């Protein structure tokens, strides 16, 4: 079977299951909170001129620091756990597809769901902008200029900064049968990484992949965000390779 066929089978497995609904729910959280904030509290005077852009960039900071990392940690546990729960690992491993394809198809499936998360977030933010346009006609939100490049870069930076976490969590999700271990490790490391940047402002954060997502929040680290994204991608390659080497041995003792 080719990678494409393996990927299709993975997509089929996730169809109408919790991961897909979970993706939509997680993606809706940020725009929903942002809309509540804007509709209930109104828009502060200093933000009225560029609120359309801010909804897509500044307001995306909370999802990129909190929601997206937690979503990735849970998703990377939930997807491999589907095989454990249904006792289908042996079935997967004896099917006529190479281990590389199984491994990559599962990883690409996670990336697609992250893509769905980002697109849903964009769509729902657009809807919340329309709601704000209607509720606050004076702001003329939809007629304000939109910086597409900045919006795209905010998503790409967040995605790149989290790619390291994604690879590590994917590996952990495959290794541990007990779902709580990868989730607990992920949440604990995410806490530690966030505190190291936001509270302790340690120099160690340059090497800690669970810290990169919080770089955009502080002016001290903001210029290093792109560099952190590249480091995160390098981590992703390393951990995916390590993960695959471990996964390759799985057939002997599944």
């Amino acid at each position, binding site marked *: 079977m080719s990678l494409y066929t393996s990927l299709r089978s993975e997509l089929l497995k996730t169809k109408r299951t919790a991961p897909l609904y979970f993706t939509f729910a997680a993606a809706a959280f940020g725009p929903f909170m942002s809309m509540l904030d804007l509709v209930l509290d109104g828009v502060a005077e200093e933000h009225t001129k560029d609120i359309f852009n801010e909804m897509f960039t500044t307001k995306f900071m909370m999802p990129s620091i909190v*929601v997206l990392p937690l979503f990735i940690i849970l998703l990377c546990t939930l997807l491999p756990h589907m095989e454990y729960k249904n006792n289908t690992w042996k079935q997967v491993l004896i099917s006529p597809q190479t281990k590389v394809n199984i491994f990559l198809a599962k990883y690409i499936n996670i990336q697609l769901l992250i893509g769905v998360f980002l697109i849903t977030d964009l769509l729902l933010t657009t809807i919340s902008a329309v709601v704000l346009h209607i509720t606050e006609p004076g702001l003329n939100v939809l007629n304000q200029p939109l910086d597409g490049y900045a919006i795209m870069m905010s998503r790409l930076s967040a995605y790149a900064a989290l790619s390291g976490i994604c690879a590590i969590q994917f590996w952990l999700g495959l290794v541990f049968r007990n779902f709580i271990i990868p989730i607990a490790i992920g949440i604990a490391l995410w806490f530690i990484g966030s505190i190291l940047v936001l509270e302790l402002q340690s120099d160690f954060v340059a090497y800690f992949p669970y810290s990169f997502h919080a770089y955009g929040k502080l002016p001290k680290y903001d210029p290093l965000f792109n560099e952190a994204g590249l480091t995160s991608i390098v981590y992703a390659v390393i951990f995916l390779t390590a993960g695959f080497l471990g996964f390759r041995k799985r057939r002997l003792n599944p």
Partner: protein
Amino acid sequence: MNLILSFRSEILKTKRTSIWYMAIVTALIAPIYSFLNSSAPYRLAQIKNDPWNFHFMGFGGLLLNMMILPAFLILVCTLLSQLEYRNNTWKQIYISPQPLKNVFVSKYLIVQLLLLGVILLSCLLMFGSLYAVDSFKENLNLSRHHLNWEMFLIFWGRIYVTVLAISALQFWLGLRFKNFIVPIVIGICLWIAGAMMMEEHQWKHDDKYPYIYPMRNNFPKNPSERTTILWGSVIYTVIFLTAGYIDFNKRRSTS
């Protein structure tokens, strides 16, 4: 079977499971953070004047209260009921010669045991982390300073009471849903929403939202608010446990 026997059987079930290891790891986070925080150069100047009280009623306790314990409860309440779901043992429990309320209460007591265990172990390890700061970073003259035990007990007691409501609601959710991701996601969303409502939106009804209580305990709008949230937490605990038990009882009759 009486409650003690039910409780013992619950302890037996959790023995050597990941729950206890997770509790130990959770208890380590606050002392390690306190050590890092207290030994930072800008903190050392502050801590020197009153090391015991600053260390025990400082950022480690705050972190434990606002972040670590809610996250721990969300995970542990889910995991506890997943033990039954994963092993397909709910029916076995229903037909065992023990009243349903004993099963429910004994499971909740396990959550409380773990919660108290984490708080006590964290507290003990905080002594270790303060001695570590004193030994490895800066001489704090610990013997010349004293811990205000009354304040200490109030501070750590409040930590326990403010997370009680979260423990009751998550316990109910954990029992309710077969899919482990549902209670975890609901818990995390309610918790993040609480943090945002308090921090970003200055929500005026935050004394009615149990996931904000641990944060409001440390950053109250006024001193009297602490009493309100402590009572609020206890009342919510009773409400959620009652609702949870009614739901649990109903589910047995339909399963």
